[in-house]
């Protein structure tokens, strides 16, 4: 599998975009997503609304893949309720999981999300793809 497939246009664009990047002055929670192997380190800011995750932003340092997946997280989970967000995280993890038998399209049919399907062929990058998503899932389950 060629590396261009992993670093596809959509992922590169997401990784380089400024979407949802930055701090939230009034964040209700701050969650650290840290990869000890490479030192990638993100801080997720969540401002809660009445019933939902009103705003999500992030800051930090990481590879293109990890940055793109964190940007995607903020983009996709913003506005959702915690139960909905938890469900989305599970779906996203399955899209990227090499062991998963189900077609990615039937799990979460979204072009941005599907850009990460390639992670199935690069299991060594699973941690980069899922870093922030897993950190958030852990936070929800500890809440």
């Amino acid at each position, binding site marked *: 599998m*060629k*590396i*261009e497939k*992993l*670093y596809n246009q959509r992922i*590169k664009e997401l990784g380089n975009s400024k979407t949802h990047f930055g701090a939230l002055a009034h964040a209700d929670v701050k969650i650290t997503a840290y990869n000890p*192997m*490479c*030192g*990638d*380190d993100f801080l997720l800011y969540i401002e809660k609304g009445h019933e939902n995750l009103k705003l999500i932003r992030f800051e930090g*340092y*990481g*590879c*293109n*893949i990890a*940055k793109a997946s964190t940007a995607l997280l903020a983009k996709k989970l913003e506005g959702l309720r915690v139960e909905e967000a938890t469900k989305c995280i599970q779906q996203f993890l399955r899209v990227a999981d090499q062991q998963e038998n189900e077609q990615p399209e039937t799990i979460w049919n979204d072009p941005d999300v599907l850009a990460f399907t390639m992670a199935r062929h*690069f299991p060594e*990058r699973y941690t*980069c793809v899922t870093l922030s998503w897993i950190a958030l899932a852990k936070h929800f389950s500890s809440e």
Partner: protein
Amino acid sequence: MDIEKIRYEFPIFSKNSLKETPLIYLDNASTTHKPQRVIDAITDFYSFSYANVGRGSYGLAQEATKRYEAIRLQVSKFIKAKNVNEIVFTSGTTDGINKMAQSFFQAFAKAGDQILISSQAHHSNLLVWEQWATAYQLKVKEIPTHSMGQIDLKALSQLCKNKTVLVAIEAGTNAFGTIQPVSEIVKIAHESGAKVLIDAAQWITYAPTDVEIWDCDFLVFSAHKVFGPTGLGVLYGKSEWLDKMPPMTLGGGGVLRTVPQTVFKESPYKHEAGTPHMAGVLGLGEALDFITDIGFEQITSHANSLLAYALKELRNMEGVEIYQHLHSPALPIVSFGLSGIHPHDVAAYLNESQICLRAGHHCAQPALVTEGLKATLRASFTLYNTKDEIDELIKHLKTAQKFFS
């Protein structure tokens, strides 16, 4: 030095050379590959000469013990130790430091004493001191360094005015390849009554090690970084200290008797309880022979020329930041980055072309943070690397810049 001939001795390179994309291994600071003769020494022992050492009186066991002890002697000569009993086999550099620490504290440290370490320390030569300092009420201080990560000798003298029990530093650092002025450091430490531990994990393959000239009290290294097997290391300690230190590990093999009361063996045996990594020791012996057969004169000069070439080629590129390395000599390690591209992405890209380069903090986070860095790319060379491989690296770094732009 006939590099092609040397490469041919390493199955990973001779087998790979037939492939379309040959393996380019530039992560030697992390671990080195094994020549066939080392692999053979290990399998031969398991196949034909295997028995426990230092225990049985039958022929096979006696023979195994003899060979095991012969390598202790070989190691002592390799690092110019005065006495064969100054060599303790461990399971690696990290293990050596962990093993000696507690025993050392019990024998020599008093509450309030300080331990001096370097800001360039590998986590292995940092965490042990940090963690145990609290238990033994010791203080751990970082020795200030010059901008290259080199120990500031004046600052060291100043720090040593406070009661110092141990100075623990790397002979050469793994993040930036900086070589420390070991003899001077030891002299300053000794004048104040402190003992010195040298982490030679990186140094050991670069140039000859002479513990007598350095006059260090302890020294550690790992076999896997000198073309030997994993799971084995060496701790050198001056006899006068090893004898005074309580056993580093307790158990079978380390005692003369336990009835009517326990009597420990002399060092180094009292420090080596349990069945040791015998096959590993034989592998290390072969690895040291391999090095000796080539000779450090050639090894060091090859390393220096690869480093100089890599630095020259990297400096000729646009958009490359090279960290440290304004001075020489240095270990054949170059830490660098491509502007605006995360080291991990570059490493993943290079992996496509079978180029193995480490990206990250290299188990020396404080060293990077001191430089304002979070991660770097690190290319590290050894005797089987070639200028052609560096050319390949440069070529692919350039295409990586295009790919990620």
